């Protein structure tokens, strides 16, 4: 029964953060670092896994509100929803857009959550096929994808990867000898991820949100709310193939390590727009198919991105990079066999994903009219406490052992985050490289010691060879088919 309480608490928490414009799941997860330090989860760490995954899904559903009612994306995953959702809201059809968005996102969360669960029993087969060489190829592919497919500034993105790798290399090396620490003892164990993430993403976003000039909040009309809500649900069912198509696009792009979060939504949106060019209502002017197509990819993409995160320890996107760190922090070695053999972990993870999605979806639809009022709260009123909470989270998660050093480093990384944002250096690429450095270095040495001594490695491991060829192709041609998602 305690699981039900945890799910409800996480739905409320994640939903609330999701409702805050520009907040998104990343910041909700950063705050979880303090929640784990404050609360002793009565059922142990598994309940925390449950809490964290429900937080993510409910946050993803909640972020549609800001996109539709304010024209500000709640997070990168709901930016495409805004294109048609906001015009619909301006036409007095906010409830219609919201219910279609939430219903589609919820249903696809359940469908693709189940699909993810079906893959898990085949994990032992996957491990036999995907060995060290394939992981090495996959890591290179991930770096190329995030550099060339998530932005048009490929060179800058590659430089971000380089920067991230350097930051990840700080601390003890494989022989236990300090590296790139400049003799500072604090750095011996590396730079804490919670500081890197908060510095790169949370603080610059919060500062930006404080200066953001927000338009009027579009109100959810009391008289028409119920009818519009049902209409939105009906249209979602009516356009079920668009929804499923969006789900499939989101899921597949989510599976590609490093690229999830935004891309799937935009690709799904672009696809549905190109397929329905002759519609009376133009895309961008309030076509519900645009909302359904992009929201279809929202939660399914998160499920797709979850799989490489837990199976290979290669996070699907920046949100999962933080979540992965959080799970490792509480004791689950994500990407390790022990986690994949832990049925309790998997049950809590997938069960939480699907049940949380359903509960969050239902609650958001039922309470949409009341929740929409939260949009009227000035951004500054959200952002100042959110910023302070994040700083507090960092210090409490570090058990207040190194307060001064933590704050200095947070300032440094906030500045780096601000510079990256201003000069369009990819922050997700930097974070991904930082997170994956250890894995890349280890895999490289294993390749050097075991496989590269053999010239036939390219033939014996064709999947690795394919990953390398794909990496080169993406690096050279990716820019032509992409846009700036970050």
């Amino acid at each position, binding site marked *: 029964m305690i699981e039900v309480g945890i799910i409800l608490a996480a739905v409320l928490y994640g939903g609330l953060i999701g409702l805050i414009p520009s907040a998104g799941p990343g910041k909700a997860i950063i705050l979880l670092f303090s929640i784990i330090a404050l609360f002793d989860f009565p059922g142990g760490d598994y309940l925390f896994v449950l809490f964290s995954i429900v937080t993510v899904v409910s946050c993803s559903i909640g972020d549609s509100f800001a996109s539709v009612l304010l024209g500000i994306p709640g997070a990168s995953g709901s930016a495409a929803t805004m294109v048609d959702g906001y015009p619909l809201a301006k036409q007095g059809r906010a409830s219609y857009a919201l219910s279609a968005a939430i219903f589609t996102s919820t249903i696809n969360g359940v469908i693709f959550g189940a699909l993810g669960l079906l893959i898990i029993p085949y994990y032992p087969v996957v491990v036999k096929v995907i060995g060290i060489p394939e992981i090495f190829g996959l890591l290179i592919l991930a770096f190329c994808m995030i550099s060339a497919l998530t932005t048009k500034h490929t060179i800058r993105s590659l430089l971000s990867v380089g920067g991230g790798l350097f930051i990840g290399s700080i601390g003890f090396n*494989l022989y236990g000898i300090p590296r790139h620490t400049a003799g500072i003892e604090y750095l011996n164990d590396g730079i804490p991820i919670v500081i890197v993430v908060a510095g790169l993403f949370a603080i610059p976003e919060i500062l930006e949100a404080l200066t953001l000039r927000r338009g009027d909040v579009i109100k959810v009309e009391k008289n028409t709310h119920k009818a519009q809500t049902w209409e939105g649900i009906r249209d979602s069912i009516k356009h079920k193939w668009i929804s499923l198509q969006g789900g499939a696009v989101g899921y597949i792009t989510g599976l590609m390590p490093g690229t999830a979060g935004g891309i799937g939504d935009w690709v799904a949106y672009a696809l549905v727009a190109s397929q329905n060019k002759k519609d009376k209502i133009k895309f961008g002017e309030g076509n519900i198919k645009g909302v359904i197509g992009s929201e279809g990819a929202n939660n399914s993409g998160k499920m797709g991105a979850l799989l490489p995160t837990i199976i290979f320890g290669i996070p699907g996107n920046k949100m999962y990079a933080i979540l992965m760190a959080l799970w490792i922090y509480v004791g689950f070695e994500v990407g390790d066999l022990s986690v994949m053999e832990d049925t309790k972990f998997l049950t809590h993870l997938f069960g939480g994903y699907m049940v949380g999605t359903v509960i969050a979806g239902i609650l958001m639809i039922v309470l949409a009219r009341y929740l929409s009022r939260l949009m009227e709260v000035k951004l500054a009123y959200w952002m100042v406490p959110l910023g302070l909470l994040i700083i507090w989270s960092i210090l409490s998660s570090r058990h207040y052992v190194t307060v001064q050093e933590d704050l200095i480093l947070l300032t440094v990384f906030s500045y780096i985050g601000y510079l990256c944002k201003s000069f369009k250096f990819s922050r997700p690429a930097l974070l991904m490289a930082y997170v994956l450095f250890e894995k890349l270095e280890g895999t490289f040495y294993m390749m050097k010691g075991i496989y590269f001594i053999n010239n036939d490695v390219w033939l014996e491991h064709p999947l690795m060879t394919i990953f390398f060829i794909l990496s080169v192709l993406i690096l050279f041609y990716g820019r032509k088919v992409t846009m700036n998602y970050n």
Partner: protein
Amino acid sequence: MKKLYLLMVLLLSTSVFAETFTYIVPAAIDGGNAKWAQKFTKEWNKELAKEGHDIILRYVPGQGGLKGFTKYHTEMSDDNLVLVQSKGFFDYVTVPESSWKGFDPTAVDYIGGQLQGTFVFIKSNAEGTLNIPYAPNLLIDAMGIYLMLCGNLPTIEETMACGDAKTNRIIGFKGMGSMRMAYLSDGLDVARDGFSHMSKTYKEEIKSGETLIWFTHGTVTDSGDMGVDPNTDGSLDFHKLFEDKHGAAPSGEFYDAYITLSTMRSGLGKWVFTKKDNPFYDVLVKTFNKTVENSRKSLAKSLGVYPWNTGNTIPLSIFARLNETTTKSIRAINGAIK
């Protein structure tokens, strides 16, 4: 007024007896040592609460634990309310004495700890040069493998040369997860792991005959020697298998270094100590014993089935092994193996 005085006396007496101990984990919050501390102190706190006390954890990561120990020694070693977790003390041998800032792990009182045991697995079809994993925390395993492959050779240099010729040391394993994956995908011929993983990670391969348990390092005894791992019947014990293969018991400088490090990993890997003559020592040992007794099931589930022990006997008998010769040998091997 009388009631007020009584209340004040009561409050004062409560505050005198109810103490909060600070438990120093000389490691990062997300590592195996921290996890062990979190699990054990969660149970320990239940028993301490009955005595009116509790424990809070404090993590001091850095320099592989050295920072935590030296911080304790220079800032907190007079404090009766500070407890520290040991983590093998390999660095006590390999890192220069000056780095320890005077900290002496034999000049403290050990409250209690859990013995550790390790298994070494090998692919049944392994032949020729063996791909073996290497990382600083896998030094003992590499030494055990060298001994098993080469037998008793007169010098450390000869054993190293023999072992180097028969193995290909693979680095890149910062955590155990990547080592397991490399082993299961046939990148490595050898792996090492704890008992709990034998019945999970290697279960299918052992069942199909693809993997064999090569040997077990054993667990430390009260006298500071290595004995048979209590989770096995003794047939896979390092000493027995060595003698079966080479016709003589293991001996020599390389072996002495190996066995000393093995006892340190098994007996000092997860222990708690405090300052000498701490007035709380007795209550801490008593509650430690009660924790092991009353939470046996939950501790076995979260921390494995290895034996628990209290007092100074085991730690001090292990340190007694660290004479000038073994220290010199360990340093020589550690330097050569890098």
